[in-house]
């Protein structure tokens, strides 16, 4: 799969986070859709069919790891690549991602460049394989 021009959905209850990371990824050439709440996320994901969903870990009603776990519970059904997204220690985030079945985790931090490098690395590792 070509890793440029992907459809990325960002799910986060903070509107400024949606705007910042949406703009960063849009400038990378990706198509962005956003959702400001976790509740009822599944129909939105299934109808939009994004290549990758960037999920905030901590949201009211249903957190990011729960969404991944519940989505993956639908064995055999289509699922996008899930990447958890939060402030905090990268090692701890990776552990949470591993436990719930997300492909990876990314830190929200002040260094947008580091975020984009992390994002591109995930794309190369998980989406740049033939047949994916």
């Amino acid at each position, binding site marked *: 799969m070509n890793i440029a021009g992907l459809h990325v959905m960002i799910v986060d209850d*903070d509107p*400024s986070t949606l*705007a910042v990371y949406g*703009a960063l990824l*849009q400038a990378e050439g990706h198509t962005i859709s956003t959702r400001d709440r976790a*509740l009822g996320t*599944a129909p939105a994901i*299934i109808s939009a069919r994004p290549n990758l969903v960037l999920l905030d870990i901590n949201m009211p009603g249903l957190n990011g790891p729960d969404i991944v776990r519940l989505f993956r519970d639908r064995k*055999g059904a289509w699922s996008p690549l899930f990447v958890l997204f939060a402030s905090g220690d990268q090692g701890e985030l990776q552990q949470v991602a591993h436990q719930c079945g997300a492909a990876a985790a990314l830190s929200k931090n002040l260094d947008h460049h580091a975020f984009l490098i992390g994002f591109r690395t995930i794309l190369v590792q998980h989406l740049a394989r033939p047949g994916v």
Partner: protein
Amino acid sequence: MVDDQLANLRVLDLMVSRLGYECDCASDGLLAVERFKAGQRYAAVLMDGQMPHLDGYEAARRIRHLCAGEPLRPTIFALTAAPTDAERMKAAEAGMDDFLEKPISMSALRDKLALWVDIPHDGATPIPASALSVPPPQRMDISALRAVKGFDATVLERLARLGRESGEGVADVVVGLVLRELPQQLHAIEEALRTGDREALTRTVHRLTGAARNVGAVELADLCARAERTLHAVAGGYAQIEDGFATPIITEARRVTEVLQGLAGERP
């Protein structure tokens, strides 16, 4: 909820009602389809697979047909014990979305409904559809932030550069969103402190951390991050937040608001 076992329906009715949803019951697939034919619509249908008159799979197929093209697409759950691969395939072909395994636990029911059923907005601020594409009328002079204590001006400067490249006022949009967010979060913190709602306080401080980082308000972000860690890690954290962190957070958030208002040309 559609099940020919009335005891199951009664239990499900209690569980779903306890979660705060309104519900209707039907004792077989045919009756469920009749409800849809009569114009009733539901956010979700919990459908047993094996029922007399019309089984759950065929009922799901007919419901999908009746609702085709409508904006509200009901989520259909198959109620079954340990679904096999063949059952999963059969359910998917019938247009069912997910499974709820019998016996259904309260936590599984709560989580699955939360994942699939969109609840009308509870006051959180949605990002306007135009936020990523329409430049605001006036561009800010972000370089003024370099001299302001507690800010990392490079955060908004980078976003402003993105804006220049794409012709969109990204930094302006982000400042506008944070300015709208800050008074709401300050009110929420004061309310959580007043009522002693630790969960609400943790959630609000977490959200404020993100908003502060997004505009490079590093001092506010650090204060909030420390408060978050305390709330998560220490049993008596709530008192420490109230005594040690709440006042500095509120004071700094008000200062950040004034700085951003000045930047955006709004009168404090």
